[in-house]
């Protein structure tokens, strides 16, 4: 395809590529740097906020019953008797090396171990929830756009409203009542790793994933609908139609591909929503993922675990935002690089 006539001096395609490459690398570098800064800011906030709260973790560790000597020994052991800036420096150094300390409640298990066990569960859950949301939203969005203002479209609109108004954890409870308690088709709680086989994994995760994915599918379906409506009124669609293409091909091939571009931006929001959903829904289904680890940590005043979980969850968000930004520049070259 011939390039558009440049307004200024023409440059060779190779030079244009080099220029774009330079733009992209400097953009990526900036984004990565910004992501690191955000993570540092979050880590710092977490460190100082948890230290500013009333309540002594050492006392909590000894169940508020210890004598002064035992407290002093433990304080020394964990470096809590040192100046705050030394603690902060050490802490940053340690988490920089993946050392989040050990749980101070019960097991004394290293936080890294707890998190590395929990993370695959949450990831499985979020992934399946995303697939379910897409499976609901894409057909619903297309049908609503193509059959605009039909009873079907109105029906989907109402369903989307319902999906957005339902607490995800409640939907989880309703699903348990129907599919586990009454129909007895699926297990109500627990998790089976993929190593046990695909079917047990799916059977355990399908209810929680549906509970999490429903609200997101509502947002997604509305987005696909409006995006499709916009694309369907574009000139190139009229051209495609006037070429005599069947409507099915126009919609599925020409319109959908372009309509999905803005949807990619919401995958960042998607992940955020799915993770937020996982935090609560894991507790409904007793799945020991990051969300359950975080909440149990908070309830047990287990600060190292809380810190570790918050940092890992935050890192996931920051990474997702970064990946989405990068993906977007790759998919749509028209995007302006700041």
């Amino acid at each position, binding site marked *: 395809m011939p390039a558009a006539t440049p307004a200024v001096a023409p440059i060779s395609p190779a030079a244009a590529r080099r220029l774009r490459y330079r733009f992209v690398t400097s953009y990526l570098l900036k984004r990565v740097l910004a992501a690191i800064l*955000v993570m540092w*800011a*979050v880590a710092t906030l*977490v460190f100082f*906020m*948890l230290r*500013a*709260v009333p*309540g002594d973790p050492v006392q909590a560790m000894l169940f508020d019953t210890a004598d002064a000597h035992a407290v002093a020994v433990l304080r020394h052991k964990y470096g809590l008797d040192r100046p705050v800036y030394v603690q902060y420096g050490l802490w940053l150094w340690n988490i920089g090396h993946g050392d989040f300390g050990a749980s101070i409640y019960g097991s004394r298990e290293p936080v890294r171990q707890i998190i590395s066990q929990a993370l695959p569960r949450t990831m499985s859950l979020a992934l399946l929830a995303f697939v379910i949301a897409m499976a609901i939203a894409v057909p619903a969005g297309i049908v609503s756009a193509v059959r605009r203002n039909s009873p079907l479209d109105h029906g989907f609109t109402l369903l989307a*409203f*319902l999906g*957005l*108004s*339902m*607490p995800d*954890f*409640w*939907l989880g*409870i*309703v699903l*348990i*009542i129907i599919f*586990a*308690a*009454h129909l007895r088709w699926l297990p*109500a709680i627990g998790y089976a790793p993929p190593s046990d086989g695909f079917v047990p994994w799916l059977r355990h995760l399908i209810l929680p994933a549906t509970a999490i994915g429903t*609200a997101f599918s509502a*947002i997604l379906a509305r987005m696909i609908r409006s995006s499709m409506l916009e694309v369907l009124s574009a000139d190139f669609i009229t051209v495609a139609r006037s070429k005599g293409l069947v409507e099915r091909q126009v919609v599925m091939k020409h319109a959908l591909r372009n309509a999905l571009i803005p949807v990619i931006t919401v995958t960042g*929001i998607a992940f*955020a*929503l799915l*993770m*937020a959903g996982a*935090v*609560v829904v894991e*507790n*409904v289904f007793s799945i020991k993922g990051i969300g359950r680890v*975080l*909440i149990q*940590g*908070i*309830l047990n005043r287990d600060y190292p675990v*809380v810190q570790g979980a*918050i940092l890992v*969850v*935050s890192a996931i*968000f*920051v990474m997702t*935002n970064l990946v989405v930004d990068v993906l977007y520049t790759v998919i749509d070259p028209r995007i302006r690089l700041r």
Partner: protein
Amino acid sequence: MAEPIPVSEVSARVLQRRRRRPRWLKALLADRRASIGLVVLIVLVLAAVLAPYVSPANPDSMSFTMLEAPSWHHPFGTDDLGRDLLSRVIYGARVSLFVGVATVASSMLLGVVMGVLAGYYGGWLDTIIMRYIDLQWAFPNFIIAVYLVAVFGAGLSNVIIAIALAFLDDFARIARGMVLTIRELDYVEGARALGASDLRLMLRHILPNSMAPLIVQATVSVSYAILAEAGLSFLGLGVKASTPTWGLILSDGRSFITRAWWLGIFPGVAIMVTVLSINFFGDYLRDLLDVRETSTEKS
């Protein structure tokens, strides 16, 4: 040139205009979803305010009729301690609605102050405030609320503070954007030339004209705040255990849902109906005030 209109017809037109319904009422009556939403909300608020008079029983009084299925006597059934579920759900409306409104009011106040200051003064103040807002923007509101409750501890006031802080980024962004647009308008310049102080410009000239998108955002945020409160209560991070809240009733009933489905259904239906009504009404407000869809649909 147009023909002069006879006086009698002028007065007839004036009268007609006066008799005509105001625009907001006409739009409301035409919008079936919004009307239903508003009626349901009024009923809910009345039920919450008049809870001692309208609930069939004391929400805390226990009895030996434990886990009884819905009946004439107990329309929503009873819980594991024999307490009337309908009464508990009615009392739960108090906490949910109060938290929803209180958090959004404080969140809006704080967020608007931050946004207006950032937008009006610009410079380093803008940089600091907006860096913070950007940082918060990167995380879902609910997760921030969980983080903050982890720091502050549970309890009614802490939950309100946590949710209010978690939601303020939306308001700050909108307020700042509006200020940046309005600040440059001629009438603001005019007021400044007449010697109006910064405070007067912000409060009397800029803020009143940025209310529409803020009101729409506030409505959306109330529904999110109610969902967030329910989620926190469900996780045991909400208001204290003796207060019946919808999230807490669901959490308490969780161990019995396989035997007593009503414990898992009715409190959730209450949450859904409330949030749905607010969303219906919010949609109407968005159309009425002509606010285009904002990109704040993260929860």
